[in-house]
């Protein structure tokens, strides 16, 4: 199944402004639409308003943290692939997302790698 890239909405939840910028530019260059949220609460609000095909989520954010956000997304849309983007090296934490997350990307990351993961996730839908 091919989907029109223009119609693909990707949620980016990240508290670092520069990283939000990098992710937005990279995804838009690939033709996707990136909707940005600087913390968990903002992300939830956006999910409730709009439908998304993929979510890129930072685990450690102030407010509603990544873990809670992931659960919330799964409640709203259980089939939405979630890509976790994290700076943490906590293996236990990584394992706790094994069921819910499609992929786990460690910061710093290669932009083409990120794009590859997003493409792969889209094929899942």
């Amino acid at each position: 199944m091919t989907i029109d890239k223009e119609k693909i909405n990707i949620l980016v939840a990240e508290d670092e402004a520069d990283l939000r910028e990098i992710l937005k530019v990279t995804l838009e260059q690939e033709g996707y639409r990136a909707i940005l949220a600087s913390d968990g609460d903002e992300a939830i609000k956006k999910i409730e308003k709009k439908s998304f095909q993929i979510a890129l989520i930072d685990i450690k954010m102030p407010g509603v943290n990544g873990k809670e956000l992931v659960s919330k997304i799964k409640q709203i849309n259980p089939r939405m692939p979630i890509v976790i983007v994290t700076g943490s090296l906590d293996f236990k934490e990584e394992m706790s997302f094994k069921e819910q997350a499609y992929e786990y990307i460690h910061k710093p990351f290669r932009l083409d790698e990120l794009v590859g993961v997003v493409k792969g996730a889209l094929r899942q839908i």
Partner: protein
Amino acid sequence: MSEDVEKKMESTHANKESISELRKAKENLEAELQEKTLRLKELEENFEYLFQHSLYPIFLIDLEGRFAEVNEKACSLLGYTREELLSMDVVEIHPENTLAKEALLRIDSGQTLLAGINFITKDRRSIPVELYVRRVRYQNIPHIQIMAKDITTERRIEEEKSKVKNRLEAFLNGIDEALAVIDRNYKIRSTNRAFVKSLRYAGKSVVGKYCYKVLHNYAKPCKQCVVRNTFQTGKSSESIRSHRDSDGTKIYYETRAYPLRDPDGNINVAIYIFRDITKKRKLEERIRYLKEYNESIVASMPSSILVVDKDLRIVSANQSFYEDFALEKKEVETKSIERVLPAKLSKKILKAIWTGNFLKKEEVETTFPRIGRKVLHVSVVGTKLEEDEKERILIIIEDFSEKKQLEGELIRSGKLAALGELSAGLAHEINNPLAIISGYAQMLQAEPTMDEARKQRYLKEIVAQTDRVARIVRRVRDFARPGETRMESVDINGTLIRTLSLLKDRLHLKNIRINEDLDFSLPKIKANKDQLAQIFLNIILNAVQAMTNGGELMLRTKLRCRGTKVSSKRVELTTIDTGCGIPRENLGKIFDPFFTTKHESTGLGLSITHSLVNQHHGTITVESEVDKGTTFVITFPLSSEEKEK
């Protein structure tokens, strides 16, 4: 008629001769009579003398029982005069025993001894007497002669003798030691009650039986026998023997024999004594065991123990002392403390003894010529040792060097644990700027035709994020710097703020708000900056872990004054979190190493904090309520310069 006689005499010459012969015979007879009469008179006088001056009282009694004659002794025995007695009846001095009177009267001939009779004196005393009684003729009339012997003294001696005998018997029967008199043939002549009681083999009576049979059920005398020794040497002999009882219990007994000499000096019997000393022996063994036990405890104690007398000379030392301080017995015993221990240590001990302020685990660091520098915990106590009741001083020295080193290691490992906890957060902190640097760099690489303004913005951000990483690394390096133990005057507010900056991101992430109430006019304290930072870091980390869902951490510093003394002033830090709190049952354990209720914690943080606070002569207390939060109060003394101000 005489003329007739003369005529006849004249008439016959022969007649004349016979007359002359007759006359002569008559003269002889008269002389003999005179002689006899004289002798009789002598005898009478002698008898009278003997009667009167006899050593014994003598009574002559007629057959009616009346006194016919008495001598002086008889009078003095009874206290009557002769005249009084001669008017009396024998019943009056011997009233109760009429039978005796009859016995007196029934005597036919010869002398009879009568005993067990008492005479009553004029002053109504009763005198025991023995009587020699015989029939005599006096003034040609049958009389009874009684010779009396006052046996009061003999009777008393007899009574004393029997008393002594009874007492001796009671005594011998009363003592626990079994006693027997044994003759040269090993036959028992007599025993006391304890002897009979202690026997296992004997029948009813043991007198006349062989001692070896009675005592041991042997068929012949024992190989080692104290009785035989005594007979052979003529001296007392003793030995301690043991044998197994029928139930296998070992029984110890002490045997002794004493020679008993007869008036001629011959030893025909020996006194044999034996005593069951099993109990005593067991007690002795127990005492010996306890003594050895105590000695072995003292000897094997890992602490060094010195016993010092009043002259401050070392009486004894245990094995640990000799081993730990590499000293020989001859270098230590009887030597004074100053000669054995280094000056710093001995001065401290002597001061404690002189002032009477005994020491308890006082830390002393000093150098020994043979074993080098040591950290010691010294205790000094006065004591009285049982044995001689002399006052002694006990010095207990514990080598704390290794523990001190371990404590250092524990602190270091705690520091590593804290660093580990930090690094989890640090990874996040560092990886974020790295991702930004990497992201912009990749974008610059992929888009060579990027407009200049965007390019410059990206490059500027790359530099800024690089600086951010460098700052983080520097902070970590500051924390992980190998512990310097230099103490200096430190402002605790500054250290607290620096520690907080290290945790800023983490606190932000955990939604923990910091509420500061710092008194910036606080005096400085004497502290090691790194260690102080670690104390604060551990306490704040603990609060962070307690507030999993965010919360508020109140940090307050102030000067605490209790009383007017400068020494009572302390700098106080109070931390109040709104976390999960500590259950009452865990409050006492939170400073124990490795005590933790959290998965991610090593349980070292608070224990190290406690030890570090102690090193700074500070105090740390905790109050907590479950689901409300925990309050730590840490106080430090002011630095000496501050006190002088």
